[in-house]
């Protein structure tokens, strides 16, 4: 079972992710898989911040919202094509993330969690704020058009969108993998585990922490943009506390400090609520809660640890 940890695995996984759904999945399944890609980018963003760097965020939904709205406003008001909005959203979210990272430096653990939680609570109300209403559409939100496949490719809208999101996702995953494997990743983990020792070794903690925040916000923001294009609609109440908590659940279930775990966490948050709904209409929340507890009990290291167990490899991260 060394296969899962081999260098070739991500490439094979990507190839399978491109080919299999296009051959076998209906448009509806493709739409769900597109959301899995979107969520896995968002979960990865959170994982870089919380899993690798130890800064607990319960407010990453706010960055997702900023990304979604950036795309929605640029498409709706300025008529930009969907793909051209991604760089804007990445830059804006990275900027906001950096700024939020500054006060976060003074806060640790529970206090940081609470501060970012406040961000999640405030987001829907800020999006409804009168002064921005001309842009944000207020409570009503913004409805977007779905992009067609370019260059006359013989693909349905859903097929194209899936491939597009997958390409962006692959790029971001490669970026994250390279980051955490190298010097920067070691520094991020060192700050998480032993901040004093890290500082003594000459790691600039403030710089790393704020930049990790910016990076996390950028990933999450791009996910938000892709999510807006896929759903074709943004509205303030879609970006409340539950969204941020969903990302958090995805990260923990997938496995903290794990790149592959982000994909598994995204699969969980996309599909498990549907399964809970199938099991009980009266109390889907309770079923979801039980499933969550079961997962945590059986796999305390997250789904990613399952692969580690299967491949018999000791955890090094």
């Amino acid at each position: 079972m060394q296969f899962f940890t081999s260098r070739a695995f991500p490439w094979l996984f990507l190839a399978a992710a491109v080919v299999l759904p296009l051959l076998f999945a209906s448009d509806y399944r493709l739409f769900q898989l597109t959301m899995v890609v979107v969520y896995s980018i968002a979960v990865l963003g959170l994982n870089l911040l919380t899993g690798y760097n130890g800064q607990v965020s319960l407010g990453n939904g706010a960055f997702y919202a900023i990304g979604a709205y950036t795309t929605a406003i640029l498409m709706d008001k300025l008529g930009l094509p969907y793909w051209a909005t991604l760089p804007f959203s990445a830059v804006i979210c990275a900027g906001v993330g950096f700024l939020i990272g500054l006060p976060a430096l003074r806060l640790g653990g529970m206090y940081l969690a609470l501060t970012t939680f406040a961000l999640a609570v405030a987001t829907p109300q800020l999006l409804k704020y009168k002064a921005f209403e001309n842009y944000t559409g207020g409570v009503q939100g913004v409805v977007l058009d779905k992009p067609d496949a370019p260059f006359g490719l013989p693909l349905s809208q859903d097929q194209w969108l899936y491939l597009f999101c997958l390409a962006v996702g692959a790029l971001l995953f490669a970026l994250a993998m390279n980051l955490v494997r190298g010097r920067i990743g070691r520094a991020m983990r060192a700050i998480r585990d032993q901040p004093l020792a890290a500082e003594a070794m000459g790691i600039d903690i403030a710089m790393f922490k704020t930049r990790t925040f910016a990076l996390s916000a950028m990933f999450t923001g791009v996910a938000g943009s892709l999510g807006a294009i896929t759903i074709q609609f943004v509205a303030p109440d879609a970006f409340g506390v539950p969204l941020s908590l969903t990302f958090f659940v995805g990260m923990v279930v997938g496995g903290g400090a794990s790149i592959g775990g982000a994909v598994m966490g995204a699969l969980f948050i996309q599909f498990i609520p549907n399964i809970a709904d199938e099991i009980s209409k009266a109390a889907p929340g309770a079923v979801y809660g039980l499933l969550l507890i079961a997962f945590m009990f059986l796999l305390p290291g997250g789904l990613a640890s399952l692969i580690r167990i299967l491949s018999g490899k000791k955890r090094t991260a």
Partner: protein
Amino acid sequence: MMKRRSLLATAGAALAASRIPAAHAATLVGVTDTEIKIGHTIPYSGPASAYGVIGQGHTAFFKRVNDKGGIAGRKINLISLDDGYAPPKTVEQVRRLVEQDQVAFLFNTLGTPNNTAIQKYVNSKKVPHLFLSTGADKWGDPEHFPWTIGWQPSYRTEAQIYAKYIMKNRPGAKVAVLYQNDDFGKDYITGFKDGFGKDYAKYVVKEFSFEVTDATIDSQAVSMQATGADVILTAATPKFAAQMIRKVSDMDWKPLHFLTNVSSSVGAVITPAGPERAVGIITSAYGKDPTDPTWANDAGMNEWRAFMKEYIPTGDLTDGGYVFSYGVCTTLMQMLKQCGTDFSRENVMKQATSLKDLYIPTLLPGITVSTSPTNFHPIRQMQLQKWTGKTWELFGEIIEGTGA
């Protein structure tokens, strides 16, 4: 057009027996000789899960229909899915219903943002999107969205009704409006403009707005009194409505106070504001309140209670969600009856927009459901009710909204 449809209906009836696939020009999806599959989304989980009872009501209602043999020999298979009140989830679930489960149509999907998220999609797919659970006015827009139709009276209709009452009973009144600065609040301004028509400027002395994010509306209330208005309308969600009632009473101001029925809840608005301060406030209603003793022996409500006893014995009989469900399901059954044996999407939409003075057991006496190809607002009548200090008391006749 008529001729072809009735021809198809007859042909369909003949073919249904012989099991030969009908050569329909119309789109027949989700309907077999034995089943009609329909789709529904509602928050069973999440912040708005209190609405989940409506979905339970629907499920039980169609179980009864099926126990009694179904409709036109077909059982109704309601696929009711949880969207947690999150628009992205609604999009996903509705796509599942339309593309994977292949439902004939969507019924009573709940929530204004949720329905906004799917409206464009379902109209592009030409799937009937029937009798939505939301009070926004925009669902009655056949020109742009011919496959979407609401059900309950919209906020705009409600405001039209208040305007009608004011013009008739308080001619020459000076009206001040307090509205929440969002879709909900603005629907009331639009409704007042419809209702007062060219006399709008004569009646309405000033409009005041507030943000949902504001802490209080005290300063607006003071300014409203300063305009010398003797009639006021408060189009605000419960928290602000309670503040308004309290402030008006504190200022010892006694205007005729109209209050949106969104904020007519005794528990959430009147009790916190003080029941004695709210005496004389007018709001409106279209359905029978299950807690109102007036309906203790009402035939319509007894029909509903009998249904509850048999199919949802553990259900809370004071929960208006079940009453709402019963009313909207009854409307759907009439539409399906009118379809005859042609359950094509085109005919479903046609019948949904040709309901005539339909009696619904849970609506106030005299209020009926009517639609037409140009009227996509099924319920356009309401009755006013006044707070007596202990309870809401219906008074006056049924008033119909203006315009289509």
